[in-house]
């Protein structure tokens, strides 16, 4: 086989920690090569080495058979290697075009020639069907769009080897479908792709071969067509993983959350939630399905008291909490796994221990009349680490140093261990490996079985289908329909999310293909 | 401990080698610094003069100074000099009153003098000046020289010393022509030239043609403004009266000069006077000596012809009357 990229026996150390231990990865021309591994296995590190951000301690890299020394991203760019980073590398307050031309700006008499650049961007984006607005500011466009900007950046520089580090972690199903389409198109254009993702189905769908790494070590490379998700999972985790989470039937009891004609606006004052009604009962998991930007964020933040309610009423345990302060709401029984773990969920510069007490530090036993008891807090942290298998040096390590996966487990541990009557879980498994996901789903169901109400927000249809007992579909700030998982299909859901009412869907079966 | 030892050897050596006549003096500057073109500098000149007259050399057993970065340095500096065994130590500036008071209390066998301040201790001589008398003459000069009959006074921070300048100046103007209104302004700072400049700009624009400043560094701004106006237009009628030392050099604009004259505060004379007295064993401890026109404590600088003879005569006339006590110049506004 003819390889465009060969990473041979790469070893990368951070201090005396081996993030990559003698890993070999060979990318054939025109293939989509998946890179699979648990959180913290070493995937991003390996790719950062290939992109010239890190220098490996050992091993060599060959491009088209020639040994190269990729000392910095410039070299990578020149070699035609482009990378779409896991944490986007976009300057928020610049426009799409500015972000794309950054570093190789077209000039007219010393002035950046934005017009031409924008035109070129528009062309490329048209060529690959990305349709992004060249003049839009990054901070104003959706994550999916930002993702495409990242892709455009590499294409604009004429990269023919593209690295995607968890591109789908934060995309909606539609966006994922579109992305997959884009990748296939790129291949036909003669480009080669390395794809990192935790979603085995995606790997099965698009990739030609898979390289699996575990705890920094290469486990091996398999041909996709000759394997299956179960095998892949076992390879990467080192044990059997169940996908369809086992759960008994729900037996819903009295209502816990009640939302009535709720209206909420976003930061710009535009109404995002428009007279929404919703109810979640003890002993059930209600999933909220919807396309990003249809008011999910505003809804959650309004319930949690992080955003002003324009009109309408929210009650928890039939206690009116409309416009109450976050703490009052928490105390009336809310547990909240926030959508953005870095913005709301954690104080990254606090230790794991401090973070584990973030919601309860102010009352006994964690503090008595104004004095903290860090001893008890450490105890609590230890138990969460233990029980929720948070991989960390210990409760004194900074939350910042944890992998997203482990950061997430920490948050879930903190919120669930408070045993709240009503638990909001917003995108709880984003960016996590299958092992972690399985674990988290188990916990949510456990809560339900203990007679708590759980409200699950997710862009992953299969997650919503697997975990929830009822699915409320949100579209344009309203619940357009509520369906039972066993009685619906992903297709139907997709249509509802797109704003079609159930009646239409039956006739619209033909559209499935587009949605899928 | 080595520090004290060193001091000790110093002491012994100086007392060994020194014959009876040698009488060492030293001073501590205030935050203004040794060369503030004002009383610190003037005091130092006095001390040097005294030293030279008595064939003393700079250093221990002769004459010396220490500079203060901030108020907190006064006491340590005074102490350092006392430890170096100077017979008489001057503290310059009212800010040093407390410091002198403390040290004088601890070192009763040493002699101290404070300039511009008063400390009630038997071993401290207090030196004050009748700034108002000098300022009065400046006022007379201004009143006689003004063509617009508008005169300005720019003060720094509003403290008693400066108030004496103001009071004397205003009185002097009034003595010549009661109808002239003096535009009195305080910038609230001694070190903000931009404010002095703006203030002066305002005054000149409003028709003022002579400004007397008692504002230290802020006064630089006054000079800048006047000089610019002179530079822009050779026959612009703008003048500045300097303060403390002869500020003629500041006034140079090409071959013109906008310094009308300066009100001198002869701290040097006072310092020498006190040093001599002390040397002769007539140290005025516990007393307050107020130096005025009469004893060359204050004076007007040579105007280098900016002020014509006849006017000078009238000024000298006033000077005489003040010296003879016929005119009593007010101290307060």
């Amino acid at each position: 086989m003819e390889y465009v990229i060969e990473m041979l026996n790469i070893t990368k150390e951070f201090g005396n920690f081996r993030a990559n231990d003698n890993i070999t990865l060979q990318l054939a021309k025109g293939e989509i090569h998946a890179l699979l591994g648990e959180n913290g296995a070493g995937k991003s590190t390996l790719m950062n080495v290939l992109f010239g951000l890190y220098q490996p301690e050992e091993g060599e890299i060959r491009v088209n058979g020639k040994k190269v020394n990729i000392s910095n991203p410039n070299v990578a760019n020149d070699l035609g290697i482009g990378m779409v980073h896991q944490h986007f590398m976009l300057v928020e307050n610049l426009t799409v075009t500015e972000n794309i031309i950054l570093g190789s700006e077209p000039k007219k008499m010393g002035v950046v020639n934005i017009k031409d650049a924008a035109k070129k961007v528009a062309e490329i984006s048209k060529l690959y069907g990305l349709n992004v607005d060249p003049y839009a500011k990054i901070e104003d466009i959706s994550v999916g769009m930002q993702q495409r900007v990242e892709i455009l950046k590499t294409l604009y520089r004429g990269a023919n080897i593209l690295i995607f580090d968890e591109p789908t972690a934060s995309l909606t199903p539609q966006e994922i479908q579109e992305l997959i389409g884009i990748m296939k198109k790129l291949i036909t254009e003669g480009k080669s792709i390395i794809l990192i993702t935790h979603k085995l189905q995606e790997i099965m769908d698009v990739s030609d071969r898979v390289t699996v790494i575990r705890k920094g070590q290469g486990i091996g490379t398999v041909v996709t067509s000759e394997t299956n998700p179960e095998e892949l999972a076992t390879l990467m985790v080192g044990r059997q993983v169940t996908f369809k989470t086992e759960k008994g039937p729900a037996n819903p009891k009295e209502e816990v959350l009640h939302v009535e004609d709720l209206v909420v606006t976003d930061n710009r004052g535009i109404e995002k939630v428009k007279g929404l009604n919703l109810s979640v009962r003890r002993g059930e998991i209600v999933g909220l399905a919807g396309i990003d930007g249809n008011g999910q964020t505003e809804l959650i933040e309004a319930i949690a008291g992080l955003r002003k309610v324009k009109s309408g009423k929210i009650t928890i345990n039939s206690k009116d909490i409309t416009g109450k302060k976050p703490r009052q709401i928490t105390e009336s029984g809310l547990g909240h796994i926030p959508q953005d773990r870095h913005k709301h969920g954690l104080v990254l510069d606090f230790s794991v221990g401090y973070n584990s007490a973030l919601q309860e530090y102010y009352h006994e036993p964690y503090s008595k009349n104004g004095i903290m008891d860090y001893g008890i807090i450490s105890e609590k942290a230890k138990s969460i680490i233990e029980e929720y298998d948070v991989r960390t040096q210990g409760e004194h390590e900074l939350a910042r140093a944890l992998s997203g996966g482990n950061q997430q487990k920490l948050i879930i541990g903190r919120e669930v261990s408070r045993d709240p009557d009503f638990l909001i879980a917003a995108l709880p498994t984003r960016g996590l490996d299958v092992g972690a996901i399985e674990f988290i789903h188990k916990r949510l169901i456990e809560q339900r079985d203990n007679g708590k109400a759980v409200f699950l927000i997710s862009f992953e249809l299969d997650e919503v289908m697997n975990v929830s007992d009822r699915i409320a579909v949100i579209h344009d700030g309203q619940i357009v329909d509520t369906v039972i998982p066993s009685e619906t299909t992903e297709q139907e859901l997709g249509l509802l999310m797109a704003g079609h009412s159930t009646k239409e869907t039956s006739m619209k079966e033909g559209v499935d293909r587009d949605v899928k | 401990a080595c520090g004290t030892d060193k001091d000790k050897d110093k002491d012994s050596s100086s007392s060994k080698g020194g014959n009876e006549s040698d009488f060492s003096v030293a001073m501590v500057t205030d935050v203004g610094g040794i060369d503030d073109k004002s009383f610190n500098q003037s005091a130092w000149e006095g001390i040097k003069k005294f030293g030279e007259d008595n064939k003393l050399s700079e250093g221990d057993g002769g004459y010396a100074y220490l500079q203060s970065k901030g108020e907190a340095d006064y006491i340590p500096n005074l102490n350092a000099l006392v430890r170096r065994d100077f017979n008489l130590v001057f503290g310059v500036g009212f800010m040093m009153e407390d410091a002198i008071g403390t040290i004088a209390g601890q070192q009763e066998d040493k002699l101290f003098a404070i300039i511009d301040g008063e400390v009630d201790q038997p071993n401290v001589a207090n030196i004050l000046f009748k700034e108002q008398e000098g300022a009065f003459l400046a006022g007379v000069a201004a009143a006689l020289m003004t063509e617009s009959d508008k005169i300005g006074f720019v003060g720094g921070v509003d403290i008693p010393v400066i108030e004496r300048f103001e009071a004397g100046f205003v009185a002097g103007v009034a003595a010549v022509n009661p109808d002239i209104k003096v535009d009195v302004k305080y910038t609230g700072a001694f070190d903000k030239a931009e404010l002095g400049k703006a203030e002066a700009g305002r005054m000149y624009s409003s028709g003022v043609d002579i400004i007397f400043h008692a504002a230290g560094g802020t006064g630089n701004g006054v000079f800048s403004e006047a000089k610019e106006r002179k530079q822009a237009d050779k026959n612009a009628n703008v003048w500045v009266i300097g303060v403390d030392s002869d500020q003629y050099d500041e006034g140079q604009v090409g071959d013109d000069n906008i310094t009308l004259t300066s009100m001198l505060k002869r701290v040097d004379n006072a310092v020498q006077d006190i040093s001599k007295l002390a040397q002769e064993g007539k140290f005025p401890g516990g007393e307050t000596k107020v130096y005025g026109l009469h004893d060359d404590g204050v004076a007007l600088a040579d105007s280098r012809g900016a002020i014509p003879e006849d006017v000078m005569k009238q000024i000298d006339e006033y000077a005489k009357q003040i010296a003879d006590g016929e005119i009593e110049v007010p101290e307060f506004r």
Partner: protein
Amino acid sequence: MSNRVVNLLVPIISIILGLLVGAIVMLFSGYDPVSGYIALWNGIFGDSYAIGETIRQISPYILAGLAVAFAFRSGLFNIGVEGQLMVGWFTAVYVGAAFELPMIIHLPITLLAAALAGALWGLVPGILKATLKVHEVIVTIMMNYVALHVVNALIKTVSGGSYKTDKIQPTASLRSDFLSNLTDYSTLHYGIFVALAMVAVMWFLLEKTKTGFELKAVGFNENASQYAGMNVKKNIILSMVISGAFAGLAGAMEGLGTFGSMTTQGGFTGIGFDGIAVALLGANTPLGVIFGASLFGSLKYGANNMPNAANIPLEIVSIVVALIIFFVASGYIIRVGLQRLNKKKEAK
């Protein structure tokens, strides 16, 4: 080398580097570094008197440093320590002079008053930041000038047109004959204990109390703090107020300890600005501040002896001090150097 050793070595090496460069400067400008540094040493530790004065000088630096550090810990940059210090100084002197009370009441009240004054001066930027998101740096800079002019005006008023307030009652004084005699008539006063007490207070506040937990959280991440039900605005204001209180006490050091009165200020004292360096040299930790203040205070004070004993101009000393700060700040590069050394050693 263990991390601890490195952490110790870095400041030491920085100081040595600073002194070295300073020595070179002296050589080139025709001064004798040896006698210069001997003078510096004697100026700091030479005799009990010097030591006394050095410690005296350190006290206000500790408090100014605490003020800056405390605000920093909750994400605020307080350049207003200078002004807060001045109002604290004035208030201390005023309360100290105006009332006649037994010491056990008078002194504490006076200190409290000074702290409150400083706190008040910190309250303004605090409120503006919390409610209107006005950047605290500008407001505190402006408040410095306001303080300067207001205090001078107040001195004039309370002293009936003079340039100096009355002396404080002995019952409000931090002066101590005991300490003074101990250090042969230095002006050392009990202020140092107040300062050290405040170090403890800050440490306790930040590391032990609920408030400290909240202040730090808000400093790191306002969103998460809000999510965790903390009152972000309250904490921002609180932080500025406490910071101001420390600064006010720094003023009290001058008013009740060093001077016993306040004279019209021609300009800023500089202590407030030095406080920034002190705090950051101490990595914004209470104990670190003691280190920063000691370094700063002793160099600043000992410097006076260089013109005195070796007639080397003060400016050279400021250069040395600045360089030391510079090198301490650049500790990273020194760390790298040390690690290189280590590697070499291990290699052998």
